[in-house]
């Protein structure tokens, strides 16, 4: 019996946990290395649940998100990452510069 990974009521999304990725770079790589069939399956599974998901996530203050809700949140970030591929281009990434060449930069102070 594996432990529950997503919050109560969202277990049906557990087959898509491979999309629960913490960093933008991981999500970019996941998008560009996944075939459209897999991307579309993930899209179709998550989009109909988004109203529920966002309502559920709204209950947590940003600094007190439990691990299972955090995983669910990362799923929504991956949805954001692949939605244009499904809705607009019909391919994982648009024809253009390699996405990894646009390096994320954090210009604001990092305070501990």
């Amino acid at each position, binding site marked *: 019996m594996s432990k529950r990974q997503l919050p109560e009521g969202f277990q049906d999304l557990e087959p898509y946990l491979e999309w629960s990725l913490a960093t933008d770079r991981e999500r970019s790589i996941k998008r560009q290395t996944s075939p459209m069939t897999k991307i579309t399956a993930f899209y179709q599974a998550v*989009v109909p649940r*988004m*109203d529920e998901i*966002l309502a559920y*996530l*709204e209950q*947590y203050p*940003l600094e007190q*998100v439990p691990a299972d*809700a955090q995983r669910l*949140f990362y799923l*929504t*970030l991956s*949805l*954001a*990452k692949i*939605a*244009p591929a499904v*809705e*607009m*281009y019909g391919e994982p*990434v*648009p*024809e*253009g*510069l*390699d*996405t990894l*060449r*646009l*390096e*994320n*930069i*954090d*210009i*604001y*102070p*990092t305070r501990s």
Partner: protein
Amino acid sequence: MALGKNKWHDRYPELGTGPIPVEPYVSPEYFEQERDRIFRKTWLNIGRVEQIPQPGDYFVKDLTVCNTSILVVRGKDGEVRAFHNMCSHRGNQLVWDTKGRCQTFSCKFHGWTYALDGSLRHITDEHNFFGLKKETLGMTPLAVDTWEGFIFINVDPDPQQALSEYLGKGLRTSITGYPFEDLSTNCFSWHTDVQANWKVAKDAFQEVYHISTLHRRIIGDVYASKANPYANALDFTLYPPHGRVSLSANPGRKLTGVESIVQGFGSTVLQQNNSASEELPAGVNPTGYPHWSFDGLALFPNCLIYVSKGTYLTHIFWPITENLTRWEIRTYSPQAETLSGRFSQEYGKVSFRDTLLEDASTLERTQTMLRSGAKKEIVLQDEELLIRQHYKVTESFLNA
């Protein structure tokens, strides 16, 4: 919105309508002149005051085009200062991080130490030097000033104009009241080095003529509409050497599925269809058009600022060689208060970034062909007014 033919060039006939030469995009000699007469003479936007909110906060900016590295620091007195990032002993680079906070700057080579105001505080093994005057050996300061929270520096030891004079009253007042400060609490940014002349990169972002073709799948119908198929601008106003463009949105555009979900939570994409009946910031939508999208400011030489409702962004193009450019993109928005807000911002980030990837697809290909020498000239249409102005302004700087 009155679609018309050649109306912008009729407004600014001094810019002419002829082709412009390829040489400025490929010539190393031209590049050296740009370095000496533009980048070493004008005010350059290198960041935001929010990068250094507290005394002791600093950031470092490598200005290859000016052959230097700049240290920008907020002093104990709250003042923002800029220095060449250089130790006065044998010239070593003083600070090696890109940002941080400290009380003093200590050189890693021999331990010389400087205060936040640039003055020299400590010389290691000082008695073995020869009559040094410590007070003359501080870091070398640069001219620095701010406008609307943007930090500008000028590497000219004796700038010919103050920043406010360089920007000019027309440009400055055109955007008065825009809430840069409120919108700057959150910044997503990227950079990359593209093998293209800095003007090839800048040109791609100071015209929207390409949107209905290159971006047809992502944002083809966001600005262009049946009534305005090529996304012609609402307005161009020039404040030489700078300028401003104002863009309309396609009121008939249908949102995609995820866009509809996102819409309730405020996104960091440029808001696409901002009704003039809504409360808009002062100093935007100069024509009062009911379906305004965004205004773009082109600051000479290398900075673009695009402002919309609830969000703005900047492009800065840093020349490295005539064929290589560091392209910096920064998007600003308020902090999201909830996870839903963060999801929404993420969607905005992704779709904006995807658009950038498409934009960038042309840059290196264009540079390759410009370098071929096959053509000596390129041609521009009416909506490419800012590119034409850039060329004319550059010529005037080089021939001054």
